């Protein structure tokens, strides 16, 4: 199924071996969207790299910039004002709401529930408008910078956020009830895409995929960054180990995030929002690891500096990559756990795949030296395969 298929938001190839309608074996080829970002980051200054990091993924862009800025700030010893951390948290949680609503719409679409898809996306518009008010962009926010955030949230905006989110909360509660009660949605997700707790541990699953299998692993709790230690919230954990559980985890997280945003708006200290940082700076030689709970799970950034103005190495490990082995395992029929073709989009979708995040390394020219291909020669070569 793929690389072009209506169900894939990005080009992925899912190879299935089927007997009738049952899936017997599976593999995923995520090589179609490779862009060479890690290599590119080695050629950019830290500030330039921020813009690149933001574009690793459209929908997770806030998670990536949060992680990147924290990583570089930690490496270079840049002190970020308190208010900026609170504001970052607000925007990060807002992005989580936006991402989960999009996912809910996609799940509905996958299951054939067009109405829920339409409604979820309608509600997401509310969040996108809020993001635009706060940061200037609906999806790619451009909000985090090294040293803080770019814009402040004033009282009027805060009020607007709270009232919009209050209305959104009512609707999301209804969607949660729908997931709990609608017989067809349940028939398509309960027991589908089973991942036992031990499998989840061995296959190193992260995020909602792990939390739906009973593993209470959330970076916001395990390794708090920003001001998570001061904002009360409960990580959402289910133990049904199936696609339904993952859906419930994500919907639950939307509600939690709304609570966090409102709390943060009320408790954020006043003050500076940005520490001025020169456009080109040289962090001392060293390394740093930063982890962030992106909507899809744990995101890890590693940086190593050699003292120059560009990173010697920048590594990004996205949650979808971590969940790929689990996804492949879930796609295979085993014993009396049969996987139908119709379940494949549901299972693959239940890990909330973001292949753009995952396939990040290279492709510009095949031979480092030797022959140079014309563009159409290259195209012909591809098609021949």
């Amino acid at each position, binding site marked *: 199924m793929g690389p072009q298929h209506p169900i894939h938001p990005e080009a992925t190839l899912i190879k299935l071996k089927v007997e009738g309608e049952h899936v017997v074996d599976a593999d995923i*080829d*995520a*090589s*179609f969207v*490779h862009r*060479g970002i*890690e*290599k590119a980051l080695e050629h950019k200054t830290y500030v330039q790299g921020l813009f690149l990091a933001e574009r690793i993924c459209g929908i997770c862009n806030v998670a990536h910039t949060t992680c990147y800025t924290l990583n570089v700030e*930690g490496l270079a010893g840049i002190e970020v004002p308190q208010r900026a951390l609170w504001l970052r948290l607000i925007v990060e949680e807002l992005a989580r709401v936006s991402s989960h609503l999009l996912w809910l719409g996609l799940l509905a679409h996958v299951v054939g529930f067009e109405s829920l898809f339409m409604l979820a996306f309608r509600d997401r518009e509310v969040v996108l408008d809020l993001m635009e008010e706060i940061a200037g962009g609906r999806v790619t926010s451009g909000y985090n910078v090294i040293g803080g955030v770019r814009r402040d949230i004033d009282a009027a905006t805060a009020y607007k956020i709270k009232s919009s989110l209050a209305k959104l909360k009512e609707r999301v509660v209804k969607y949660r009830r729908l997931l709990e009660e609608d017989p067809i949605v349940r028939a398509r997700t309960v027991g589908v895409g089973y991942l036992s707790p031990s499998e989840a*541990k*061995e*296959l*190193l*699953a992260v995020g909602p995929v792990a939390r739906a299998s009973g*593993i*209470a*692993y959330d970076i916001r709790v*395990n*390794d708090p960054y920003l001001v998570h230690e001061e904002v009360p919230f409960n990580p959402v954990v289910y133990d049904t180990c199936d696609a339904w559980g993952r859906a419930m985890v994500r919907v639950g997280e939307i509600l939690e995030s709304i609570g966090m945003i409102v709390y943060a708006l009320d408790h954020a200290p006043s003050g500076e929002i940005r520490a001025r940082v020169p456009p080109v700076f040289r962090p001392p030689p060293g*390394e*740093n*690891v930063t*982890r962030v709970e992106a909507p899809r799970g*744990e995101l*890890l950034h*590693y940086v*190593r500096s050699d003292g120059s103005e560009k990173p*010697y*190495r920048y*590594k990004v*490990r996205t949650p979808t*990559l*971590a969940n*790929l*082995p*689990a996804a492949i395992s879930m796609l295979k029929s085993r014993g009396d756990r049969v996987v139908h073709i119709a379940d494949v989009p549901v299972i693959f979708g239940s890990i909330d795949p973001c292949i753009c995040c*995952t*396939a*990040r*390394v*290279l*492709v*510009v*020219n*095949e*031979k*480092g030296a030797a022959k140079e291909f014309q*563009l159409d020669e290259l195209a012909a*070569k*591809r098609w021949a*395969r």
Partner: protein
Amino acid sequence: MKGREPSEEEVVSWLRERLGGAVLDARVARKRRVFVRVDREHFKTALIALKELGVDFLEALTGVDAGDSIEVIAHVGRSVSVAVETAVPKGDPRLPSLVDLYPGAEVYEREVWEMLGVVFEGNPRLARAFLPEDWPKGVYPLRKDYEPKHPEPLR
């Protein structure tokens, strides 16, 4: 979750105790960050030791081209993140696979092999994962000697 997770100091002392001189360097960088360097022969042993201690989650495998050698860093831990580093010479870039410890490591090892050329012996499927199908063999893009050609603008 297997019981309480160890503290940063406990991780360092445990490793020193178990591996002795194989630990070339160990430091607690800050809260929940430990960086440890071990020699190549004890890379896997260190990870096994950490798993016994309760640090039993592999988050990522990073490869870094460090000139004559390639450094491989295993990031383990849920709360405390321990970076276990080792170096393999470029002429003989082999390491034992971690797949029997962490089955999910298969895809991470594939990525490091593909990008930097480190061979993880014992990995059942050390094959192309992210590069296109017609990528030439033996060319490892994340190595420092690989310079991507800048694409020419389409006319």
